[in-house]
């Protein structure tokens, strides 16, 4: 019989894998992985904010992630500094700011490594509740906006000309990323969240013929990869989040290599 902490770890890791799959596909299609990483880096700052203001930490993370997302969208309109440089600035500013704020404000109360790389084996019942509620919201919003999100990813101008709300889709993606960071941070850590988004989607791409098939395959890869990684972590006594990410990266690199070889003849 599995230990309760292990059951919670398994549910959390598999849950993050499932919730991240559709958003991860959108992040891959829209080339937003660095955008997602920047928002994720804001998570630590959000935790520090939460501790300083004595509000719920998850709420602090959501607020900071939304602020960073808004800054990215707002500053992205200027043309003097390219978008990827802007991401480089904000991403590292958020990370450095988070570490400084955490050490100044929170002192001993904060497990820095746990927030950076996650601690899947220390997941609590309330973390799982957050994952359940937040995950349901993320999946629900994506399902409701799915046609618009896909159409905008395929061709923004055409989607707009067909009367779809491009701005709404953009805003939804920022909010969804912020929510996902908030619910997944305790489990996988701010530095590894983007791996959960991008890797299963990339691994699924060669085997999918429609956007929806890619999401289903990515969800399966994410869930199985999380379980395998957790098993690896237990049996080899290595950290859980990084072990899962290693398994997922092996899956995605393997799929990419397989597809490249097939195409090469």
């Amino acid at each position: 019989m599995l230990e309760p902490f292990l059951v919670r770890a398994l549910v959390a890791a598999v849950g993050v894998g499932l919730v991240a799959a559709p958003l991860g596909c959108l992040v891959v299609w829209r080339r937003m992985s660095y955008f997602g990483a920047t928002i994720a880096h804001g998570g630590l700052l959000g935790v520090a904010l939460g501790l300083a203001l004595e509000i719920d930490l998850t709420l602090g993370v959501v607020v900071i992630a939304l602020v960073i997302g808004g800054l990215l969208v707002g500053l992205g309109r200027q043309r003097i500094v390219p978008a990827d440089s802007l991401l480089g600035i904000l991403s590292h500013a958020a990370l450095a700011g988070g570490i400084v704020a955490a050490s100044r404000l929170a002192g001993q109360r904060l497990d820095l490594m746990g927030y950076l790389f996650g601690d899947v084996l220390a997941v609590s019942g309330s973390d799982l509740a957050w994952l359940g509620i937040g995950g349901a919201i993320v999946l629900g919003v994506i399902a409701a906006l799915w046609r618009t999100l896909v159409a905008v990813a395929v061709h923004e101008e055409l989607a707009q000309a067909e009367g779809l709300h491009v701005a709404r889709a953009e805003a939804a993606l920022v909010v969804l990323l912020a929510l996902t960071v908030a619910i997944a941070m305790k489990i996988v850590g701010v530095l590894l969240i983007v791996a959960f988004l991008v890797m299963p989607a990339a691994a699924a791409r060669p085997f999918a013929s429609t956007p929806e098939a890619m999401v289903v395959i990515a969800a399966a890869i994410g869930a199985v990869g999380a379980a395998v990684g957790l098993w690896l972590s237990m049996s080899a006594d290595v950290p859980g989040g990084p072990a899962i990410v290693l398994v997922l990266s092996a899956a995605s690199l393997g799929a990419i290599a397989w597809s490249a070889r097939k195409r090469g003849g």
Partner: protein
Amino acid sequence: MKEPHKKTGPGPSELGGHAHEHASHDHGHHHDHCGHQHIPRPAGPTVRVAPRTGEVLISGRGLTMTRGGRSIVDHVDIDIAAGEIVTLIGPNGAGKTSLVRILLGLEVPDAGTLTRSAGLAVGYVPQRFERDAAIPMTVQRFLTLGARVSRDRLQRCLDEVGAGGIVDRQLAQLSGGELQRVVLARALVREPKLLVLDEPARGVDHLGEADLYALIGRLRDERGLGVLLVSHDLHVVMAQSDRVLCINRHVCCHGVPETVAQHPEYVRLFGDAARAFGIYQHHHDHAHGLGGEPLPPGGASGGDTPHA
């Protein structure tokens, strides 16, 4: 920035008269206008009478857009009615695509009014459709992005554009010509009344181009569509259009193709390519400044009277 030429020609209200001409089916009496002067249509047997057209689908008056202090679209009047093919021609940077984007509602003009007939469905074929191999996409799924339709209906639309056999293929594996037809089919599944195509023949070989324009003409006939076409291919424009709007930020001249082809402004803009149609020599009725804005007649060019 106020354009200096405004005082030399008729204002937007006078230009508005053209809508009238067009809506009243008065095809025996074409006027065109170049810049700011009406000239009589040339006499001769080559003048083609445009087919009778239906209700006006979309109508722009005085459409003006300025970006970064530069005038991009300058007091343009345009109407498109059901059953006619209207072609926008003009040099690069003349604001053709900007005008199309205004008509589609993708850009908001700084001035002018845009009227659409109630519940107008528009099918749009953008200038460049770049496929993204990162997104797995069958032709069938791609068509249902534009509208929720049954497989039967999208198969009919694919048959209509001559791409019936590729419904299950991946978008990334289509040839340029096949892709162009699929994008056209996506516009058609929406059952549009107005079809807008921005340089649809780009990236299609010459034979494919002739086929494509023949197809557009057929769609107009069979579905009674109004078609707005942006093109730089003058041969095709002259063969396929009912009306031509030659723009260089402002409307330089408009009318049936033969009228426009003989217009001095058109000849100036297109030079040798225009002469290839066997158009007679013309005097230019107004000169353009460095910014492309017409200068008052009687200035640099000596104010020759236009050919009639």
